């Protein structure tokens, strides 16, 4: 009869849960751990917590197996496994507080030192070397050989990359006559560039990988010609007020994706190109000079012109190397 079997199982389960063996405590003087009275209520609590914990763990498995369509699967999984762990932890806390003998034991700290052993070790080391007649030379030889061997093992790490090479840091994909194109490769016309807006540009015909090079991307804006205050060395870099700056901040290499256009003159500050990483602020009207923030170098400017069909083209290369500063960044020009 299944009913009686269920009843039997329930009874035996209850006996397992509630029945407890009473052990006579051993005489006090032979024990390592002090005897303490039993706490059946705490045992029940622990068993309950462990049971709930395994229910939660089971719940985790069930949600994982069948919960694909649940709206908050990650949350439910997290609650299930998190509670399984936390209930287990709670059970252990009850064990710690109520069920294991709590004792504070005193003990001597280890001695500060062991002079006898120290003496023996020193003697063993010193006496082992007495056969050597040139001990210092010997040491030099050992450390010398060990050191050079170590160097030899480290040497192949030089292959990681170029150690003494600055060419990549100066080279840019820009040449005289190269057109400026947008993300999809469509060439910019001068008439596309409007005031109070800013544009992302690349050299025409670059692959996706080449677009990731620091010297490839530009931020292009247009300012009223009468507002330009370019220094003499940058005269002629703009095309009727259109300015093409390197998009990479000279401070820490982030992309300059903020343009503060003065929409409400004259209250608003001057137009500014801003890097959102550390808020280095560059004045596009004066040739990319730093007006605030940590950048220590002007933003490189690419000279541009408008061809006979109205397209924007590079007139040459940047006025300096692109990207964050390093020791040689002011020593060389940008190179094709």
């Amino acid at each position, binding site marked *: 009869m299944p009913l009686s079997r269920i009843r039997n199982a329930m009874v035996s389960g209850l006996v397992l849960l509630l029945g407890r063996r009473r052990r006579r405590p051993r005489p006090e003087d032979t024990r390592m751990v002090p005897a303490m009275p039993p706490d059946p209520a705490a045992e029940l609590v622990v068993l309950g917590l462990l049971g709930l914990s395994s229910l939660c763990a089971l719940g985790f498995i069930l949600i994982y197996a069948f919960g694909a369509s649940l709206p908050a699967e990650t949350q439910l999984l997290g609650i299930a496994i998190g509670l399984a762990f936390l209930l287990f932890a709670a059970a252990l806390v009850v064990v710690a507080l109520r069920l294991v003998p709590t004792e504070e034991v005193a003990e001597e700290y280890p001695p500060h030192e062991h002079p006898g052993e120290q003496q023996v070790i020193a003697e063993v080391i010193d006496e082992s070397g007495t056969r050597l007649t040139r001990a210092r030379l010997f040491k030099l030889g050992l450390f010398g050989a060990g050191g050079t061997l170590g160097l030899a093992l480290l040497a192949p790490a030089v292959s990681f*990359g170029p150690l003494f090479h600055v060419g990549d840091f100066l080279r840019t994909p820009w040449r005289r006559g190269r057109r400026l194109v947008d993300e999809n490769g469509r060439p910019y016309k001068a008439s596309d560039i409007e005031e109070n807006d800013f544009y992302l540009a690349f050299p025409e015909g670059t692959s996706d990988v080449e677009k990731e090079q620091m010297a490839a991307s530009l931020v292009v804006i247009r300012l009223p010609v009468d507002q330009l205050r370019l220094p003499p060395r940058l005269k002629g870099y703009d095309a009727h007020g259109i300015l093409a700056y390197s998009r990479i901040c000279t401070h*820490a290499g982030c992309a300059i994706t903020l343009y503060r256009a003065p929409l409400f003159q004259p209250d608003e500050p001057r137009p500014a190109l801003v890097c959102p990483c550390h808020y280095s602020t560059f004045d596009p009207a004066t040739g990319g000079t730093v007006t605030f923030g940590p950048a220590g170098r002007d933003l490189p400017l690419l000279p541009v012109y408008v061809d006979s069909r109205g397209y924007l083209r590079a007139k040459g290369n940047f006025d300096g190397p692109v990207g964050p500063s390093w020791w040689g960044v002011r020593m060389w020009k940008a190179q094709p």
Partner: protein
Amino acid sequence: MTRRAVRWVDQRTASAPLLRKALRYLFPDHWSFLLGEVALYAFVVLVATGIYLTFFFVDSTKEVVFHGDYYPPLYGQKMSEAYASVVHLSLAVRAGLLIRQTHHWAANVFIAAIVLHLFRIFFTGAYRKPRELTYWLGVTMLMLSLLEAYLGYSLVDDLMSGMGLVIGYSVGLSLPFVGQNLMNWLFDGMFPGSPRLWPRMYIAHVLIFPILIGLLLGAHLLLVAMRHHTQFRRKKAQTERTILGVPAFPGQAPRSIGLMVGTAGLLFLLGGLVQINPIWLWGPYHTYSSTNGAQPDWYLGWLIGGLRLVPSFDFTIGHYTVVPNPFWGGAAFPLVVFGFLYLWPWLERRFTGDHAFHNLLDRPRDAPVRTAIGVGVISWVFLVFLAGASDRVNVTFGIGYVSQIWVYRVVVWVLPVVFGLVTWWTCKELQASEVVVRERHAAESEARLARMRRGQEPPGDPGALEV
């Protein structure tokens, strides 16, 4: 039964003496001693969840087009295989997001626990002889953990992680004289480097750094056990020579294991319920894209603050750029902080002439100068951390960003000195108040003794007055 098992093990391993010692190793009872344990258990969770993540992560920056129909906003976008694999893991692998978020939360909790543990060690003087080695290992682990966490954050190759990586690259580039050579070598070319970069970062994140941290952790714990724990002097039995504590078994074991299981539970709850770094919202990284209002994980907040506070200049001699700007906030600042941490035990010994063995801990008030310097340094780092959040303050409260930065540029140097002095004064006052209480108790018991002698009061325990 127990006897037979123990016998079996001992006969085969000869480890009974060692096991006996380990079972009865004493743990002095104080809540602050658990901070280091939380770090340890967070590390366990990190390793466990990290192993799971490696089964799905692809360490390649090869460009692919995203075709996962489970997330339409990214459909058709070009991105690296690495980023695509993490988006897939997060949105299309069952329980993948839970494990990834738990991993990320565990990293945050791991470093927080180490830092709090460090505070406890510092302010109680636990690093003093004979435990300097333990302390230096701990500080080294903190440094390695910061780098390890940064690597993990960078590997995902989402927009935020790429912005973090290029900033780190620029800080490396700014190291005087050698920066360009070092970064060119490490990245195999100028940023964004060669296709070899990602496998390098990956193996560093999942093998080299975890093994280094694991080895140092083992040495750290071994040294703690060899010299035994320090202890506060809370009971008369606790002296420089005698340790009083709960044995590892049975007293400490359920507490420690409970703490481990509890830490894991909390981290999984966080991983399931509190969203962290939803990388599919950030989109893929390109050198030409960035976003406003980006903030790193909390443990790098002090560095972004440092980078943002430095005024505009590169230190140059002629055309030679000696110190590019990011060096100050990104390299010099953390070097000074870690230099201070490494040198402190030596500095303190130098100025106090204290060469004694210390098993008893100080309370912060017992060493006013140390406590004052500690508070000064912490507030210095914390103010720089706050400066890093100026853009969020600007958005939330509308206080001008530029004015905030100018205020911080001054306050960062002034306030730590003020906090240090106030701390020193507070410690002194606390000490003085204890002297007053002690003297009052002594006088009261003396008076009572005198009355007793004159027969005006029944004999009692004069010590009973002492609280």
